[in-house]
């Protein structure tokens, strides 16, 4: 018998990750590494990783990477891509990085239509720092800074940042997907491939928002986390293609 699935080339071999059991990062990391190989991007890729659980992503991805201050990934990616447009530049960011402290950079890099790709991991909570409220936390969701559940009167509503930027003319492709089972994972890979292809084809900015499980801070099993995404989170953040201007219109 021969091995049917090989270890992805651009993923450091047999390194045990620091991510929690059932965390969505591992699945999306693997998808990205596979696409680096399938689309032959790994040799010219620069990934800008966030402050968040994925601050240690450099231990796993076997491509050139740049650390970023919290939220600044899309500004750093802009600097790289503008001076070296032949490089393949993408950010990998969490919900705090991208839609709290990094909101201005996220909106303006999209508004300028920078030729970068953004992978937005949305787990509705601040994972690395122990489970505080995120901009995408759902109404009623308990976190360490909303112990009584998110109350719109004081805490506002979940922020649909991807929907906002999808309307910008320079945002060529925006899709929301969910890591909530085999079908969702397949769809996630297809979406990220589409988004990467937008940059390869020189069309402009692309973003994929991935609803991702955080069993530890949601206080659920991995299996129940997948269910919670399907039954609860995806009702607020509805998966689907938010914009597709690849044909020239939308």
């Amino acid at each position, binding site marked *: 018998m021969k091995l049917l699935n090989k270890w992805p080339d651009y993923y450091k071999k047999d390194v045990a990750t620091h991510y929690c059991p059932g965390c969505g990062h591992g699945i999306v990391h693997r998808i990205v590494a596979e696409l680096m190989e399938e689309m032959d991007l790994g040799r010219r890729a620069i990934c800008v990783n966030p402050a968040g659980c994925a601050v240690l992503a*450099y231990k796993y991805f076997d491509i*050139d*990477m*740049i*650390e970023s201050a919290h939220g600044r990934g899309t*500004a750093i990616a802009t600097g790289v*891509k*503008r*001076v070296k447009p032949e490089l393949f530049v993408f950010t990998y960011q969490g919900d705090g990085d991208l839609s709290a402290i990094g909101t201005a950079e996220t*909106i303006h890099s999209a508004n300028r239509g920078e030729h970068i790709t953004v992978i937005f991991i949305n787990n509705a909570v601040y994972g690395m720092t122990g489970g505080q409220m995120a901009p995408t936390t759902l109404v009623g969701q308990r976190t360490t800074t909303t112990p009584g559940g998110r109350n719109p009167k004081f805490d506002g509503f979940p922020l649909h940042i991807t929907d906002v930027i999808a309307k910008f003319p320079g945002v060529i492709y925006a899709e929301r997907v969910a890591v909530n089972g085999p079908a969702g994972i397949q769809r996630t890979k297809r979406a990220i491939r589409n988004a990467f292809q937008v940059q390869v084809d020189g069309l402009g900015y692309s973003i994929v928002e991935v609803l991702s499980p955080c069993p530890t801070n949601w206080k659920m099993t991995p299996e129940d986390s997948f269910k919670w995404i399907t039954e609860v989170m995806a009702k607020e953040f509805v998966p689907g293609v938010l914009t597709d201007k690849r044909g020239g219109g939308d």
Partner: protein
Amino acid sequence: MNKVFMSGNHTFGEAAIRAGCRSYFGYPITPQNELGEYMSEHLPANGGVFVQSESETAAINMVIGAAATGTRVMTSSSSPGISLKQEGISFLAGFQLPAVIVNVMRGGPGLGNIAPAQGDYFQATRGGGHGDYRTPVFAPGSVQEVADLTRVAFDVADRYRTPVMVLGDGMLGQMKEPVVFPEPISDFPEKEWALKGRGDGPSRYMASLILDPMEMERHNWELVRKYQVIAKNETRYEEYMLDDAKIVAVAYGTTARIAKAAIKRVRKEGVPAGLLRPITLWPFPKEPLQNLARRIEDFVVFEMSTGQMLEDVLLSLEGKARVAFHGRPGGVVPTPVEFARVLYREYQRQMRVNNETA
């Protein structure tokens, strides 16, 4: 190039382009808007990249991205905007990335005003950002020096892999003077540390994160050794009429020019005054000051602030001489007459003290 008549702000831009800078990221703020505007016109014409960012914070991070690829890159702002860049400057220092940051100072703190001041000395020389690092700081005193020191700033940044600040003020930025620019350069040795995609080689991570404290300590001391080399090689200052001086003014930038005019005035009244003008604020010219203190009893520090470089002068002199201070903060530009009165008064005091102890 022949002599041209140009503003300080425009000169920063032209000097940067001639130094091979091919990327600029910045946000408008008075009194340095003309620098960004100059870059928006001339950088793309020279095959470079100009981006007006959404904030000074975004700009310094775009600088990080560009610098990581080995490109000569510049940003500029004025006092409040430089506050916004502090995190990014700390990161540049931690990453050991070269970049040039221009601060055209204005009145502060807070929103302040748009008039010239020197209130950001502490911010520039004492870190400003978090962590154990120093930033070389150049303080031009004329538009010609803006042209000359901007080139030096890029060279020092590349040579030592460090962010470098060029500290001007609103007066210097706005005024026009004759300038002769050096010839443009654009060929630089390759930077093996720069990121360009791993190609067939191992992947690399450009980082300032070092979780292991022992490793972090090692990195911190490595940076200190670098700063010691910079202090040894790159300290710059000007000596003006010091040979027979009995009282020495210490001032930098625009204030130094006013001090020189004051010195010319009081010399006519028989006051043997001179000036030590720091050109690098960090590394600070401690040694020349200490040497002077062997024979000079009185120093007068002039600043357009409430007294920031004053502390470095006191630290350098270690109590070996009397230090007086005269400052005008808030955007007020002092006059030569005002400085002359101070020098005269301090010299009279010195003569009285010496006669009494004679």
